[in-house]
């Protein structure tokens, strides 16, 4: 891959997914069927508000589903990637891997 092709490929990367926190969220969720808010918070180290805001963005883009329920008196938030979300993160990592490979060969 030439330098120009590499830059062209970078330009096609989705900003919505490529943001580091969202990429971590999407990657984690792609490894499981579903996970709860606490697990993602532990994994990413984000504050509740920050994580919540990223999740809303991803939900608005229909990349993940948020399901709220009650466990006793506590709210329990479950998160799951949609089919579209799963496909998009897979494609994104394929692009990143190919970019890294091309850059590594130079």
């Amino acid at each position, binding site marked *: 891959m030439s330098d120009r092709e590499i830059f062209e490929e970078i330009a096609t990367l989705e900003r919505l997914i490529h943001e*580091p926190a969202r990429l971590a969220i999407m990657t984690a969720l792609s*490894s499981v*069927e579903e996970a709860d808010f*606490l697990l993602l918070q532990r994994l990413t*180290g*984000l504050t509740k508000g920050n994580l919540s805001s990223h999740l809303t963005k991803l939900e608005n883009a229909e990349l993940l589903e948020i399901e709220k329920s009650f466990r006793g008196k506590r709210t329990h938030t479950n998160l799951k990637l949609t089919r579209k979300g799963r496909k998009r993160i897979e494609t994104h990592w394929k692009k990143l891997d190919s970019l890294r490979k091309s850059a590594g060969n130079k």
Partner: protein
Amino acid sequence: MTMSEDAIRPNQKGKMIYDSRLLEDLRRVPLYIQLLYGINGVIGGFFLFTSNLFFTISETPEPWVLASGAISLGAFYFASRWYRNQFGSMKPLQGEREKSTRLGILFSLSLLVAIVLDIKQATPISLTGIGFVFVFIFRYVQLRKLSGYPGKNNYFNLMLIAGGILAVLFANTLGFSGAYGMKNFPIMIFGIQLMVAGIVDYITFLSKFPPASDTYE
């Protein structure tokens, strides 16, 4: 414990920044998730083992044996609840669950054969020992598929083979002796298998991720 401090620590403005190592670590998130499966295995295996140990060492179920078993099972319940409250919970992928189910069926069958046949004979005990080898191979293939790790000719392969051989020897020796009644021996073996699988995941995880001090700037 979490990879957050190492991998995606926010900078002073609260934003996360990329570097090549960050990308590397993000790529390994599935392996981290695998570690969580492993920890679940260790916790589950440990309590399965201890709760059955009390039943196994006594021919007749004396009150203290039953109480110890009940305490161990109770501790398992509270440990699981504590773990969920501390680290959150997740549901494995459909494929992972199917694999676990297949593995579970395999063990159940070997246990059934062991129980139907004479438990004190070597052959059925060997089946549970062979189960050990299956667990090692299963975890090995799974981890390798997830991360391209471990590579060939490293300590992990040696551990895999040594673990399998030791397990068969161990199971056979105890099985031949017929010591301690062996009533719940196959269940104990299953507990140990879960623990070993979890520990293998943990070692793999530690060798894969940078130490805590090696953080991003």
